[in-house]
């Protein structure tokens, strides 16, 4: 063989070696890609770790592999998944490695470590009984957010006395996969905790909602019983008014009116809690809303000072809307009632017009004191009352600030709206829009 042939043969050998190396490399890459795919599926953490160790052994040619994960203290191994050692042997070896020996010492070390003979390392304390003999060693850390969380151990490289740089790179890559899996599991656990906390909070909220409803129902019953006497006896006296002088008659009328007012508040509170609890169902029928508006306006006439305030209705002869008649009446009573309460002179006008797209639009305009801008924002909140309005209310005992809150909830139950516009010194305009509500029988 000539020199040239020799060198050709050599270069062919080199090329072959290079090809083999590249093929291995491709195989490795394929393995890692495959690992990435597998691991991105939903798997139990234990399975993920096992797949990682198995791959690490396969791709580096290690006879034995293990993956250790530290517990929360960071001092001890909580899991130790092994490959290449059968269960029986593992059983015989016994406890997980602790802070002694190579495995133990390495727990806290963030660096990779490669040894040709484990027993040559000064930190080695020898193997426990029944442990298979191991010489070549490669250990890489599993690091999440800068903390060592565990380690992949590979030993006894097949067909070679020591692990290579490439083996170390493979192991590091797989260790980072393990780190991701660990981190994902931690996040998942946190999310699960948060979800169960949330569920618990929801249950508590629901319970407190039920307690509130039960409390209000009870309260309503307990308040109605004495109120029954207050209103009833006042009525008995008033029905026998011939025996009273005018002042006494007025006194008893005040008792009767106040009692009736208190009853209104109790009803409002019950209503509000029922609507809030989603327990209110509308009873929809074809309703002449002009008739409802007319009745409402007429019922207010006795309450105004006819010399100073004019109350009027501007509406077509009839207008039929699919809505809950008694709830509409309640809404209009609230809104027109507010206008009556706060208007000392001028005009209260209720305008009824067909709503675009079906239904009706009610505009109640008064010449009362008006509501300051900052209060208009809050006027629909339960129990909110405009301070300015409170100060000017001609009847100081009236109102709990529930009327508009209820009105809006009822309008929204119909799929409608309530809006308010007000100018201090000029008056207030409340607009209720109610669409035709389809009659859907509730199951």
């Amino acid at each position, binding site marked *: 063989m000539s020199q040239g042939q020799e060198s050709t043969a050599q270069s062919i050998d080199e090329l072959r070696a290079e090809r083999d190396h590249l093929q291995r490399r491709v195989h490795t890459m394929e393995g890692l890609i495959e690992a990435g795919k597998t691991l991105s599926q939903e798997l139990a953490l234990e399975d993920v770790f096992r797949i990682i160790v198995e791959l690490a052994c396969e791709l580096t040619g290690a006879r034995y592999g293990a993956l250790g994960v530290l517990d929360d203290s960071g001092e001890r191994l909580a899991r130790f998944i092994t490959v290449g050692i059968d269960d029986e042997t593992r059983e015989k070896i016994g406890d997980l490695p602790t802070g002694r020996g190579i495995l133990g010492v390495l727990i806290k070390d963030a660096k990779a470590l490669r040894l040709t003979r484990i027993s040559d390392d000064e930190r080695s304390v020898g193997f426990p009984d029944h442990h298979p003999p191991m010489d070549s060693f490669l250990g890489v850390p599993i690091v999440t957010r800068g903390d060592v969380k565990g380690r992949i151990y590979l030993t006894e490289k097949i067909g070679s006395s020591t692990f290579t740089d490439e083996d170390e790179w493979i192991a590091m890559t797989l260790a980072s996969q393990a780190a991701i899996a660990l981190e994902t599991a931690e996040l998942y656990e946190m999310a699960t905790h948060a979800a169960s906390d949330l569920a618990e909070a929801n249950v508590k909220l629901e319970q407190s909602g039920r307690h509130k409803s039960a409390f209000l129902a009870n309260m*309503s*019953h307990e308040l*109605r*019983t004495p109120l*029954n*006497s207050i*209103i*009833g*006896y006042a009525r008995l006296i008033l029905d026998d008014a011939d025996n009273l002088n005018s002042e006494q008659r007025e006194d008893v009328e005040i008792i009767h009116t106040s009692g009736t007012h208190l009853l209104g508040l109790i009803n409002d509170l*019950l209503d509000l809690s029922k609507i809030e609890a989603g327990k209110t169902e509308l009873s929809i029928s074809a309703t002449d809303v002009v008739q409802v508006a007319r009745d409402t306006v007429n019922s207010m006439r006795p309450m105004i000072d006819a010399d100073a305030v004019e109350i009027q209705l501007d509406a077509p002869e009839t207008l039929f809307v699919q809505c809950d008649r008694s709830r509409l009446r309640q809404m209009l009573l609230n809104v027109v009632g507010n206008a009556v309460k706060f208007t000392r002179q001028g005009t209260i006008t209720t305008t009824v017009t067909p709503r675009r797209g079906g239904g009706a639009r009610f505009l109640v305009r008064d010449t009362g004191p008006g509501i300051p801008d900052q209060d208009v924002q809050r006027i629909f909140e339960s129990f909110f009352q405009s301070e300015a309005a409170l100060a000017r209310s001609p009847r100081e005992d009236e109102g709990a600030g529930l009327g508009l809150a209820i009105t809006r909830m009822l309008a929204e139950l119909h799929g409608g709206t309530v809006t308010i516009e007000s100018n201090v010194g000029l008056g207030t305009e409340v607009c209720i829009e109610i669409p035709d509500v389809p009659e859907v029988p509730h199951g």
Partner: protein
Amino acid sequence: MADSPLRIVLVDDDDMGRRMLRRALDRRGHEVTEANDGQSGIELVRKESPDIVLLDMRMPGGMSGLDVIRELRADDATSAIPVIFVTASVHAEVRDLATKVGAQGFVEKPVDFDELYAVLDRLTGTSSD
């Protein structure tokens, strides 16, 4: 006060409320006898065979208004006597229940006398006009 006088048994544990209703009914010329719990109410109804029973819902002593009406309905001697609930339990569910067990009327507390009179008139077929 042109009502035809009725004989009414009034069953309610609230003494003041009962006295008040009796006076309101007296004024219309009705004749009222009273019981303050469910058991004595049933006995009184059996004894008096009234034209109408006015019945509270929530009462102490283990017998609610619902128990009372069920027992009255189960007894031939009392099954046809109209019962009107007069109660501070104003839930729609309670009202439904009252209708289901065979009550002829339901008046909420605080009692609006005009409403009560109207219910009585309706049951006895008299009307004020």
